[in-house]
């Protein structure tokens, strides 16, 4: 008995290995055109119905800070809505990994691809290849360099920087000493910070005391803020642009006993911070959205634009470019942006 089980196990392993090795053949066998059910064990061992399921690949950056963790969470959440769709989710730490992820999905034979690119430039060629194969592409947040996406859903990082900076200037009455906490040096960060700096520069009485990277990370936010607090005896406001950083910096301010002296603007709508805004915190008078849920919007669009042969008719009216505005969260509207069970 034990021996049989063992043999069956090793057979299954062999079959799985074969399946993995013969991926191209496997996907061809499952192509609706050939229609004969493949005799190999599929990954989830679900019988394929005769009319093939819609297959959608989702390729996103791996969770390396709070916001990307939110993206992964929302991507899973959106998948749960469509149990009848065959999703493949892959997370990548680098563009190289993301390219191989998308290549693997293409081998598997996907109908649609939802991509939040780790970097724009390196992902463009592979997106182009997918596009040329007729795969429906929804590009979320970071745009490709060529117009290969069927739908581009863009978060507006420049507006993020501009609007949050303008809020800060207005609340300070155009006059005050601020410090800037930046994220990981990359395009997203530069877009936000440069747009904010343009606003701050128009107000000569806004003095930027310091501008340092805090890596979208709580520990760094705490440590950099501690140093700022030693160096600057008077700070009116902290432009932190990300809520992980803001939470770390908040801790440093509390420990220094200087909560009364300054207030802070984080960003991206972390649930703890939105809660504080909602409760009328003096430290967090507002927040600014940059919703990680935009990946869910993209997945939803991909499914509804592709299913039941909708692709051709939908393409007649679906815009190619949708810009997701960033919104200011204030105590009045905070409850609309509060998701207590989200990871972010």
């Amino acid at each position, binding site marked *: 008995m034990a021996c049989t089980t063992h043999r069956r196990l090793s057979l299954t392993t062999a079959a799985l290995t074969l399946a993995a090795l013969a991926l191209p053949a496997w996907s061809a066998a499952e192509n609706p055109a050939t229609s004969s059910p493949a005799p190999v064990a599929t990954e989830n061992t679900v019988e394929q119905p005769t009319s093939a399921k819609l297959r959608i690949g989702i390729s996103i950056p*791996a*969770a*390396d*800070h*709070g916001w*990307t*963790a*939110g993206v*992964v*969470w929302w991507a899973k959440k959106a998948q749960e809505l469509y149990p009848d769709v065959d999703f493949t989710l892959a997370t990548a730490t680098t563009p190289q990994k993301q390219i191989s992820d998308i290549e693997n999905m293409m081998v598997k034979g996907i109908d649609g691809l939802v991509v939040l690119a780790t970097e724009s430039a390196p992902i463009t060629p592979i997106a182009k290849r997918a596009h040329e194969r007729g795969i429906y592409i929804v590009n979320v947040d970071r745009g490709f360099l060529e117009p290969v996406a069927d739908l581009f859903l863009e978060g507006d990082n420049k507006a993020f920087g501009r609007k949050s900076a303008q809020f800060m200037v207005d609340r300070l009455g155009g006059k005050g000493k601020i410090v800037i906490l*930046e994220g990981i*040096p990359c395009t997203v960060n530069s877009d936000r910070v440069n747009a904010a700096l343009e606003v701050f520069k128009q107000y000569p009485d806004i003095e930027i005391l*310091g*501008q*340092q*990277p805090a*890596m*979208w*990370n*709580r*520990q760094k936010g*705490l*440590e*950099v803020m*501690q*140093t*700022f607090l*030693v*160096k600057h005896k008077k700070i009116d406001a902290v432009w932190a642009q990300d809520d*992980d950083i803001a939470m*770390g910096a908040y*801790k440093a301010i509390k*420990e220094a006993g200087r909560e009364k002296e300054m207030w802070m603007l984080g960003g991206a709508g972390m649930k703890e911070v939105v809660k504080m805004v909602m409760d009328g915190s003096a430290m967090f008078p507002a927040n600014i959205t940059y919703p990680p849920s935009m990946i869910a919007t993209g997945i939803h669009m991909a499914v509804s634009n592709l299913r039941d042969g909708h692709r051709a008719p939908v393409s007649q009216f679906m815009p190619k470019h949708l810009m997701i505005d960033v919104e200011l969260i204030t105590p009045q509207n905070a409850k609309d942006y509060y998701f207590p069970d*989200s*990871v*972010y």
Partner: protein
Amino acid sequence: MIQDKPNTPTAPTFRWSDFFETWGGLIAFVALAAFCSLFPGTRDHFLNPENIRNIIHQNSFIGIIAIGMTFVIISGGIDLSVGSMAALIGGLSIYAMNKVIGGMESEWMGVVAACVAAPLIGMGLGLINGLLITKGRIAPFIVTLGGLAGYRSIILAMADGGEVRSSSMNLFEAISSPRNGIPLPAWHNAAGDQVSMSITWPIIIFLLMAVIAQVVLSHTRYGRYTIAVGSNETAARYSAINVDRVRIITYTLIGLCTGIAALLLSSRLNSVGASNTGNLFELDAIAAVVIGGTRMSGGKGRVWGTIIGVLILGMIDNVLVLADVSTYWQGLVKAGVIILAVLLQRSRSEN
């Protein structure tokens, strides 16, 4: 039997290279500190006692891990898993604490549970690394590279990619809070205000562990065996040293250090970010050890050097912010100081 300084005792001739090999790290440290105290961009704040306290406090977590790393590197090994391991241990300890607080409704018991769990889990994970390396005969680089990916993956899955949040209100945070610790006598600063400050618990634990580790390294049999294994494993084996046991103890030891650091760090943030807590700690710890004059290939090293290495790295981070150096240039400044520090103390044998 094992001589870690073959020339110095018999050769009375003074050589600058020997002098720098021993004291280069310390000279680099003093030079950097002097520069920071005089440079116009940083001199007003660098020597502020609170700033110095912050530097040591912020780097005590890495420092504790680097102490363990010193032993691993001296024994001829490497441990790349410590950053991920710290996130996993911190996360698991907070889960344990939340469970106890929820079940027994006692915050005290919960915090005690975390304090017991963290070092034990750390030793357990270190032991696994050690067994895979010795009994499994897999290179330390590979085993711990696996740990780097694997431990992070476990905590990401458990926390759903998000944060593990402590349900302790104040007590857990109190361990690593800069407001607690052994208070120094109050004094008056230049502005005439009365200032008081504490030497925090992480600093105390870090320095205490450093002293114990230096004593273990230079005055116990285990310490001498570690050096022997690292300088010539075959010779050590022929001298009837149980090489596998020395290795296993070494990896368990760094696991213990990582456990303690993870506990203090998660107390500091009262949470663990599954995705970013402990990121790149392994490289900082290895850098600190090498800056401190421990030989990368093993067989030679010192704990006090590592402490200097940690403080040099911490000082760089601190003055970059104090001097408000542009984000993009920070890496180059850091690289320059690290290379200079190591260049100062290179030994002739390694040229």
